[in-house]
């Protein structure tokens, strides 16, 4: 089985993290599914520029079999429909059976990219996944939370599973130095990859927001200040 983990480059942070929280869990689940004794292969996929490959190098160090950067565009300024579509093109070319993504897998934490990718692939989309296990031929079992229930579901693959950080800590291995694989480049200069016109306005118009921090000296003042907002 080919598992593809879609990663994204997180915004620059002081601690220099190369993987977002949900992406870390998605990668951890993929590596666990492809653990010892299985023939499953894991490919990490990221749509971004050459300087945004930190997440892919981290994935290689953690043990994925292949890392692929989808190049050819400035995806940072693209709406989720566009990013979902280009990921779908790449996923199809990678012949993926199961696609895992971080639940809030974009800079603005929208989580809409995996839904759009599933839409363009024409396959099932299951969000809010906390646990994943193989369940026999062409099936996976997942645990999801939502609308007041915690449910165990059996899902037929291919499918896009959007992973959220569950109560358990992530299980990806620490950095290793032994994986010599390099990041492959997948170009979208492909006649089959006809994209919809990018709709940057779908991202919304940016407005400044300047809100400072008011310091108070009691619990009552804190609650009063919060209620005033």
């Amino acid at each position, binding site marked *: 089985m080919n598992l593809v983990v879609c990663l994204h480059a997180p*915004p620059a942070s002081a601690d220099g993290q190369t993987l977002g929280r949900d992406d870390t869990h998605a990668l951890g689940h993929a590596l666990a599914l492809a653990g010892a004794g299985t023939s499953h292969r894991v490919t990490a996929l990221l749509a971004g520029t050459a300087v945004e490959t930190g997440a892919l190098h981290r994935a290689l160090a953690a043990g994925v079999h292949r890392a692929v950067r989808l190049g050819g565009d400035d995806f940072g300024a693209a*709406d*989720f429909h566009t990013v979902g579509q280009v990921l*779908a093109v790449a996923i199809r070319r990678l012949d993926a059976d199961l696609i895992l993504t971080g639940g809030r897998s974009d800079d*603005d*934490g*929208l*989580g*809409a990219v995996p*839904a*759009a990718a599933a*839409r*363009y*692939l*024409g396959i*099932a*989309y*299951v*969000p*809010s996944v906390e646990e994943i296990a193989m369940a026999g031929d062409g099936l996976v*079992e997942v645990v999801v*939370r*939502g*609308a*007041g*229930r915690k*449910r*165990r*579901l*059996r*899902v*037929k693959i291919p499918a896009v599973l959007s992973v959220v*950080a569950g*109560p358990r800590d992530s299980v990806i291995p620490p950095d290793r130095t032994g994986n010599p694989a390099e990041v492959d480049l997948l170009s979208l200069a492909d006649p089959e990859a006809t994209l*919809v016109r990018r709709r940057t*306005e*779908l*991202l*919304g*118009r*940016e*407005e400044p*927001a300047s*809100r400072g*921090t*008011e*310091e*108070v*000296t*009691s*619990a*009552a*003042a*804190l*609650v*009063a*200040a*919060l*209620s005033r*907002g």
Partner: protein
Amino acid sequence: MDRAECGWHDRPPSGARRPAPTFEATSLPNLLVPIDLRDGEPTGPSLFALSEARRIAHQAGATIYAIAMNDRELDPRVVSDLGRAGADKVILCEGAGLGAPPMEPTHGAALLAAVERVPPLLVLFPAGGAGPQLAPSLAARIGAAFAARADLVVAETDGPLADGVGRVFLRRWRADRSSYRRFDPVEIERPVVALLASGHRRDQGGRGGQGGSEDIDVEVIACAPPVQSGFQEIASEPDELAEVALARVLVVVDPAVGAQALARLTAEAPPGVVVVDRKAAATAIAASVPEILIGVGHADLPMVGTPRGRVGVILFGDAVLPPGALADVLWRAPGNPADVVWEDLTRALASLAVPAAQGIDGAGRESPA
């Protein structure tokens, strides 16, 4: 009650796109609110979303549709509740399996049937409901903009609208909280799908004053189950953290503060205020959209609020607010917090309780009127 047949819409073949709705098709100022039903009753955030829609509907010249998905007819009392909260009309997608918690493979096509029946300007998902499951897919299917965790704003501005009709905007934070994103469905010529915060249902007092009527129509769309969803439920149990996603006021306590303090704050939390452990409830916290979020003993709060929402942080001793931390209000409490701090805090939180007249329990669910 109107009743119509509307079959499920199969997924398009791989790679094919359903034609995106044109602006002409989407320019009707319909506001759609998918209702979250628990044991047949609408949640508090669902009624709040209807009241928010009602707040802007008059100025925007809009009609409000409550979208319910269920496996049977709605109780007339529930229909009245939806009307009082602000709905002009209810669309019930009725079919086998639609009474289960919504998931995209089982409920997505039914919701799409309702959206195609009433082309929307906005689709407003309530907090704690089907939003995370259905909203991104719906936005992808209809080519809409998607505004997770948004507020509604109405402005009287010039534009391609009739005189006296206000422009409706939505605002959401960027992930780093450095700026807002503003969505104008007229400008982008597409509908906007959004998740609203949890909040108090406003007392609206009469239709002229933006209130709703309990005497409203229900239109039924009969939905056949999907032929092959590729999806089977093996087990289901109540989510012990369900109240977190519905909370209007969420207090997130760092485990380092101590189990005793957490237990005390939890036990003494007033109705409408939910207290949780930061680590144990991380997933549920990330899915919440509270109006007020308070971190106790830490400032590591996820970006879960809306621009109208407020964030408070309580740090102890010499702890420093990290650069870029989300905090509208900061209280530096004494180090080694003693009982007096917890007493002050529980007393202060009591003022955030939901008014008794609204009948909302601690889980944010409204009791029957």
